[in-house]
């Protein structure tokens, strides 16, 4: 069953909200413990989520 456009948008926004709420904590953990690669990936996802809001909202 395919989702309606509104339902898809709602799910994507929920996902971004979860990313913006959880990843800062993961980023802190990575930076404080010297996990550089994890820090890079986390910050990239964090910023990409925000870029999505600017481009697709």
């Amino acid at each position, binding site marked *: 069953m395919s989702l309606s456009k*509104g339902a898809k948008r709602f799910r994507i926004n929920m996902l971004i*909200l979860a990313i913006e*709420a959880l990843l800062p904590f993961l980023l802190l953990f990575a930076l404080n413990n010297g996990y550089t690669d994890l820090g890079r990936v986390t*910050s990239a996802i*964090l910023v990409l989520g925000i870029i999505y*809001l600017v481009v697709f*909202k």
Partner: protein
Amino acid sequence: MPEVKNNPVFGAISYNCSPMELTLGNWLLSSLPILTVIILMLLFKWGGLRAGAMSWLVAAAVSLIAFGGSWLILAWSQVKALVLALNMLVIIWGALLLYSLASEVGTIRAIGLFLPRLSNDRSIQLLMIAWLLTSFLQGMGGFGVPVAVCAPILVGMGYDPILSIIMTAIGHGWAVSFGSMATAFESLIAVSGVPGLLIAPYAAILLALSFVPTGVIITFLGTGWKGVRHAFPAILSVSLTMGTTLYLLNTLGLWSLSTIGPSLVGIATLFLLTRLPAYHGVRTVIANGGQELSPRDLLLRLTPYILLVVIGFSVILIQPLNTFLNQVGISFKYPEIISGLGFVTPAESSATIHPFSHPGTVLLVSVLLSSILLKRKGLITRTSPRRILSVTAHNAVDASLGVVMMAGVSTIMTHVGMTSTLARGIAETINGVIYPAVAPFVGVMGAFLTGSNNNSNILFGALQAEAAALLKLNVPLILAAQNAGGSLGSVMSPTKLIVSCTTVGLGGQEGKVLRKMIGYGLIPIIIVAVATGIWSWLLNSGV
């Protein structure tokens, strides 16, 4: 460490001063995130969430490139923003849930049917809802609740959704600083170190000056100049009684009641005025298909709001209950953060969140209890909870993202010294004659950025006191101007607009609303600014 300077009037005042040299370039860079939001929303009519996200990217880029920011600082800023946002989001979710429940059981329609019984006069109905009921709700619920509750009622009465938001938002602008137990005012006292009793009389008078213009703007938007001419004696009477109450409560040190008290007196005054033939209006045929609800049905449908008032009042005013509920408090500890350019944010704790007396909890409990009651009476069916939760979730996601983005912009700017640079630029380049008239706009800027009068006072309270002392101005008056500006300006912030627009089905159109609102919203602020300028000049010239 935060710089501590000696204030010649009221002792030591501490504020976090940026070590960066103050140049026009730095100042302009610091203002970029705010300008981004304003330009995108006003000129390009972007929604609050999209503009907030763009502003976050600009703030992050400027902090990393020019203000010694790092990913660690961005991570901490975002964590602090989440905690800050959570405090507001619980209220927003509760308000949206209450609104969905009210829509489901026909509360909004019931209020539309009830009002004509009070008065058939449209301008009186408008003043009652958009000015006094919103102010009263601000006294209890705070963030977003007044507009979330009252704007849909006005839409239900046939008013344009954009105008409904503007009228309800401007209507409760004065009530923000002393609402929610005067938290914003208490913060101002705490950060400036100036006794509240010295600031409170000035604060009362400056805010009371906004009463008449607020009433006039609401009536003008709803009923035109004819309505203003008709309602002006009522606006003046309500302003006088509310202003006197506000001044008395403030001078007695009872500022925690300085929103609820004047609002109730205002409601009583307007109620008495409806007994006059001029304001009772002409009895018309009841709308909505000629149906009229019985008093029992009406009371039943009003249950969510009645319970909100009763529970909210009990939590705030019954002292033993308040103390008991406040026993549990959650606070987060943050480490010292130093930017690459040496700007220090000292180790601090977040504001304590009291989960059991929090306005969000009051809203949620009201929803829960009224749902049980309304289910027993058959107004809530088996499919209702799913519908209510689905509508709430759809509205809450975008509103939550918007609040998180704007809170993030604010914390990034604060942690790398952009906010400090911005405020210093204003405080150090404007002379003592002009500064008093500019002071309210500093409060407006803080509230616009953070969506909160409380945060504006925390950000700029100490700086305003310091600037006033250096310029040999009356410090309590300038602090009162900061407070009034923050209060009146907070209702125009993108954060609050996102919530307001969601409740009347205008999600994503915040830019359009702000564009229409800003002209009207600035009128009371300009009046307060001019009054502060004149008052300060009179005080300094010894009149």
